[in-house]
């Protein structure tokens, strides 16, 4: 089936996953601009201004993502995962280092065509409540930044195919409010895929849904990325989700965040429900967990030290937790 010139296999029914798609070859996106990595981050540093001075969030992140590759980023809370993702989308500027997406600065849409930019899936679905599901998916295609321009019939056809891909065929005329949280997140995913990004950026996309829905959505995402050959960077707190979806899992240090270790998940795509609950995934998850825990312990110790310094500085008589009360 044609997908603006790209081949993809429409999704099988939600639970009939695990069969190898004819489009199993993660073929590069069309209009590829180079053979290099789709994302190349080198020594990226960023800070947020606060009343107490600049708060360094990214402390020199290095990351490359190859064409069609899925990388999950995991790390302690507040380590800068979302900041890094927003920097990749051009929503946050880095102070030092370089970030390039397809050889260009993030957010630079000049002269770009289909399959060359980034798509962003937010933690909350953030759908336009005044539009139908189909119009929400068409949003990116209506903008001047999108090339080539599609007429209304093409946009409609494109949106309906994506709805089919994410398992929501027939829901095109529904308002977002009529959909469950999981269904809204599928629309969110379809909207990001509609602009045919070379790389999809996902910020804890399934954190707000229940366990069963989350696992189903993970399979929908894995299948969609695989079918379209789209690279992805997924920020998540869920280690099993990271291992299930990713070709590589990057572990970030405590703030200021940088990538301290990367785990390769050798299992081929598409991955099925058995893998999702199997021992292989559990074993990799355990390794990631131990690395993450060591980062988190450092972060916790660092927080305690900062708190103690603050107490000492303020001259507060409050006893430390590890000191006996007078």
């Amino acid at each position: 089936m044609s997908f603006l010139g790209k081949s993809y296999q429409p999704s099988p029914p939600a639970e009939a996953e695990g069969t190898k798609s004819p489009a199993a070859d993660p073929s590069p996106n069309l209009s590829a601009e180079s053979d290099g990595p789709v994302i190349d981050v080198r020594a990226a540093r960023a800070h947020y201004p606060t009343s107490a001075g600049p708060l360094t969030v990214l402390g020199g992140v290095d990351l490359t993502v190859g064409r069609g590759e899925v990388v999950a980023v995991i790390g302690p809370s507040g380590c800068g995962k979302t900041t890094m993702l927003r920097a990749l989308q051009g929503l946050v500027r880095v102070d030092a280092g370089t970030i390039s997406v397809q050889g260009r600065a993030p957010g630079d849409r000049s002269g770009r065509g289909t399959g060359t930019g980034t798509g962003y899936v937010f933690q909350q679905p953030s759908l336009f409540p005044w539009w139908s599901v189909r119009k929400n998916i068409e949003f990116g295609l209506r903008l001047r930044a999108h090339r080539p321009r599609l007429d209304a019939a093409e946009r409609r056809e494109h949106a309906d195919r994506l709805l089919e891909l994410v398992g929501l065929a027939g829901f095109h005329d529904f308002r977002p409010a009529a959909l469950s949280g999981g269904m809204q997140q599928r629309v969110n995913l379809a909207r990001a895929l509609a602009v045919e990004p070379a790389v999809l950026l996902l910020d804890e996309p399934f954190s707000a849904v229940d366990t069963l829905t989350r696992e189903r959505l993970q399979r929908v995402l894995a299948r969609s990325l695989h079918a379209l050959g789209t690279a992805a960077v997924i920020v998540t707190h869920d280690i099993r989700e990271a291992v299930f979806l990713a070709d590589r899992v990057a572990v970030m240090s405590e703030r200021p965040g940088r990538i301290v270790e990367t785990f390769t998940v050798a299992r081929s795509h598409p991955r099925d429900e058995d893998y999702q609950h199997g021992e292989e995934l559990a074993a990799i998850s355990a390794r990631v967990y131990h690395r993450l825990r060591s980062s988190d312990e450092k972060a916790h110790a660092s927080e305690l030290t900062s708190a103690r310094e603050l107490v000492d500085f303020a001259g507060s008589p409050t006893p430390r937790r590890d000191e006996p009360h007078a």
Partner: protein
Amino acid sequence: MPASVENGSVSSGRRVRRLVLPPLSIVCGLALWQAAISVLHPNKLAVVGPVEIARDGRELFRAGTLGPDIGTSLEQLFAGLAIAVVAGVLVGLLLGTSKWVAGAIGPWVTVLYTIPVIAVAPLVIVGLGLGDTAKITIVVASAFFPIVISTQAGAAAVIDGGLRDVTRAFHANSLETLRYLTLPGTVPHILTGIRLAIGRSLIALVAADLFGSTQGLGYLIISGQQNLKTDDVYVGVVTLSLIGLLLTAVVGYAERRVHGARTARGEAR
């Protein structure tokens, strides 16, 4: 209880509340008013009953004075409201989307909003004369600020909300952000502003007629006061109230439609 029955009773209860209760309340109020007149016999120069008002209204209408008065007032009201809506929405959007504009113009909006229209109406009439232009200007001045303030609040909420990140992430330019996000997101606030503006416009209309006019509902009220025709005063007041009620109902219906369309748990129409 089965869900459908529950839903049915909720739905019929809502229908009674929305369609039956308001007119029933008005009819009961009018009946009590008339009963009080019949029992208490107040000074007819101060208070008359609904029956007398209706009778006088019919006579004025047959005499060919009430119709033109209503027409003149409606023309001035709609012209003033239309200008206030266009200008108010534009200024409100500017204030809501640009912190620089809000910083520069915001204090002026606050200061001018608090000026009572009755204080400046004579100055406007001196400046613009006794014609429609002065009346429409006074209506615009009254209706403009509630629309600006409401639109500004709505636009600021939309711009600070999560959907702004969506338009940025998709690289929407300023015009596209205005077209696809700010304007549709602000529509409920604009409608609320218009609803508030209708009441202020009606007051402004009478205030404008106070300082010289030859036709209009305000003129009917003023001339009734001057000629001790209390019935005429009440006819003018009640007619203005009915116009306000009708316009508010229309805008309220539009607000419910917009809200309903955004929260509908079914297919979009």
